[in-house]
């Protein structure tokens, strides 16, 4: 599909009063040149590539707009998102083209002709002038959309359709086109009626490569913008829906369709996406992952309900959604399980709760504690997202202890808190310390427990040895303090920190 007036259409869509004739200019090789123009300007005899000075000489009052390639690109991506309601496989063809693979989708719209007409008509309603062509190959459709007269080429007839196209329709450099023109070769038929070897020798690989692509001798894949879903279901509405309950109801209905497909494959979804196509062309996409393969429509609905609740205004329905699509982006094999007679499936219920909390707050915020192979307290455990940890984690190696008080604190500060400590030098236990403007006098202290830093990870050798003390204050509060650095050997004046709280 070719959006032949993309830049000017963009400007026109945003201007308050219609201007028939204007041009868009940009600096090309240190000169202001026309890069896009309206139909009205084209009728005046102006052309893309012409210098602005020349155009002004012809029409002194010609309105001019500065080019904005970034905005053009964004518009193109927006259109690509919207085209998603025709087919999931869409490739960008910058600066002003889109490639849609409609294989297997066309019949849903009443055939290729109807699809192309519908696409062009709906884009025109939004003020975008487009030309669509359907052909067997990307190259052929590209050429036909820009230079051809015929929109739809039936299967197997692309070669015949190509014959009348000009050489420029092969996606080759303007230089090659000009050279061929001087040799009197203007259309594709001229190329094909002659032997290939001289062309290859004269113009290099590109020309013949493009020709072969257009004829389908060389395969040309479209790289899709969105990942292709493993399964999807969608619902269109003649009248757009805007209420949240309606959207959720639709999602549940689609989920039950989707689950039927997944069931047949013996799979469950791990990553779901809902695409909401707003009537004015905007597309909202909500994605959510789950901890275990899911194929339960009410649960899928529940998860999206959380997600919608969080998004709030970011997902404004405006005039309503006219298409809702649910796709399972990632699926995983799951075997049907016999549910217990007791009806208490704790693992599954917990997994669902974790999914729900994850949908609301982000999956990274629901974590499990996983032990790590290090003895530095702050790195000894890692918070791993709970959905990534399948079953309950391997238990931490049990530290055999016969003390009456636990040797490790219940709460650990991510950043040790600096404190003022009175302690005997060189390595006596703390006698008194002050933390958060409260003074604590120590009645019992156990330690030191020496933790040497890991020299194999410490390149600069700047990490200091720590001496940990468990202390109990006169009130009975227990805390975990440490002295950083060995007195006299590593530092002249060690600092003290509070690292954790005991019960």
């Amino acid at each position, binding site marked *: 599909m070719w959006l032949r007036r993309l830049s000017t259409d963009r400007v026109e869509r945003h201007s308050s009063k219609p201007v028939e004739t204007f041009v868009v200019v940009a600096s090309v090789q240190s000169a202001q040149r026309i890069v896009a123009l309206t139909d009205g300007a084209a009728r005046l005899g102006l052309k893309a590539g012409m210098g602005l000075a020349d155009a002004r000489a012809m029409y002194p009052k010609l309105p001019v707009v500065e080019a904005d390639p970034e905005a053009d690109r964004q518009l193109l991506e927006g259109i690509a998102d919207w085209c998603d309601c025709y087919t999931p496989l869409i490739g960008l063809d910058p600066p002003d083209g889109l490639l849609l693979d409609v294989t297997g989708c066309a019949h849903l719209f009443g055939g290729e002709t109807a699809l192309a007409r519908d696409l062009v008509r709906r884009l025109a309603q939004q003020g975008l002038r487009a030309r669509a062509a359907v052909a067997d190959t990307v190259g052929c459709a590209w050429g036909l959309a820009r230079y051809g007269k015929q929109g739809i080429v039936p299967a197997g007839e692309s070669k015949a359709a190509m014959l009348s196209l000009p050489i420029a329709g092969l996606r080759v450099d303007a230089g090659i086109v000009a050279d061929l023109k001087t040799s009197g070769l203007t259309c594709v038929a001229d190329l094909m009626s002659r032997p290939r070897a001289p062309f290859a020798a004269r113009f290099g690989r590109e020309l013949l490569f493009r020709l072969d692509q257009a004829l389908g001798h060389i395969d040309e894949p479209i790289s899709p913008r969105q990942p292709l879903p493993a399964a999807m279901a969608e619902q269109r509405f003649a009248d757009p829906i805007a209420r949240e309950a309606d959207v959720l109801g639709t999602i549940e209905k689609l989920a039950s369709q989707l689950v039927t497909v997944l069931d047949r494959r013996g799979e469950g979804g791990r990553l779901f996406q809902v695409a909401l196509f707003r009537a004015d062309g905007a597309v909202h996409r909500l994605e959510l992952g789950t901890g275990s393969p899911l194929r339960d429509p009410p649960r899928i609905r529940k998860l999206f309900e959380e997600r919608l609740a969080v998004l709030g205004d970011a997902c404004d329905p405006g005039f309503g959604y006219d298409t809702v699509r649910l796709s399972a982006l990632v699926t995983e094999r799951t075997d049907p399980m016999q549910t217990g007679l007791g009806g208490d499936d704790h693992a599954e219920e917990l997994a669902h709760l974790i999914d729900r909390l994850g949908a609301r707050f982000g999956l990274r915020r629901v974590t499990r504690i996983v032990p790590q192979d290090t003895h530095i307290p702050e790195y000894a455990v890692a918070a791993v997202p709970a959905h990534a940890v399948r079953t309950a984690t391997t238990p931490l190696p049990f530290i055999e*202890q016969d003390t009456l008080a636990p040797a490790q604190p219940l709460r650990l500060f991510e950043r040790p808190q600096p404190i003022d400590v009175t302690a005997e030098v060189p390595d006596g236990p703390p006698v008194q310390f002050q933390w958060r403007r409260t003074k604590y006098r120590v009645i019992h202290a156990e330690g030191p427990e020496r933790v040497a830093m890991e020299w194999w990870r410490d390149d600069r050798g700047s990490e200091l040895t720590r001496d940990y003390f468990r202390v109990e204050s006169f009130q009975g509060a227990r805390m975990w303090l440490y002295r950083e650095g060995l007195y006299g050997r590593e530092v002249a004046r060690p600092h003290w920190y509070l690292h954790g709280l005991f019960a």
Partner: protein
Amino acid sequence: MGSTAPTLNRLRQSLAGIDPSLKPALPGCGREVGLDPAIDAALGGGLSCGALHEVAPSGPGYLGAASGFALALASIASGQRREVLWIGTDYAGTEGGRPYGPGLDLFGVASAKLVVLRVPKPVDALWAMEEALRCRALSCVIAELTGEGTVADLTATRRLSLAAREGASARTSGFGLLIRHNATAVPSAAATRWSIAPALSRPDAYGGLGRVRFDLSLRKNRCGPVGRWIIEWDHHEHIFLPALPVGVAQAVVDRSGRAPLVQTG
């Protein structure tokens, strides 16, 4: 198996009609978390599951003790299979530290059975707690709020209590513990409100630190008297042990409903 619980409940109800002191803590919930015979008596059999309980440190620097008490309750309440959810705001984590795996294991709460949720705002913590209390796979839900936790007002705590009761069934519990970083006078619908301070421990034979001691003040009790006790936590056996009583007068309570003392000997 499933039909025994309603029968038991019915029997309890009819017993409560005969003797008011046997009244279950909250209607519709049969399970309790037992602490210590003396405390359980005041609570009418133990801390009731299917209810919300509030825990706050009684002074600055006692947050460790308050968390420890909550975790000890979680340790008693959690069975072999079910798990514990800890909900904390980001700020609560930086302010009071995050739950530390090895320490939890030693204390008696298996860290492998703990799910930690960090939420951005205090309101989110309440939402998550309400959601989690209804989940039967969790034996205990702990949420902590910084400061006095004023977002958990009467309405919010009533919602949580209802969710807890809804989550409680014969074999499961909606056992909710709300930790406030500072004690508060904000009214609340929680079943009990505890104020926790650490108590000086008795050192072991070699002068090392002794067992963890809690100085518990039950400030509010919806179905019984309040009181103050000192108990020890045995982290090997996962049980509370009685410690010496504190030499202070007990709060005045109405004991007219109690059975009269019987003279012996």
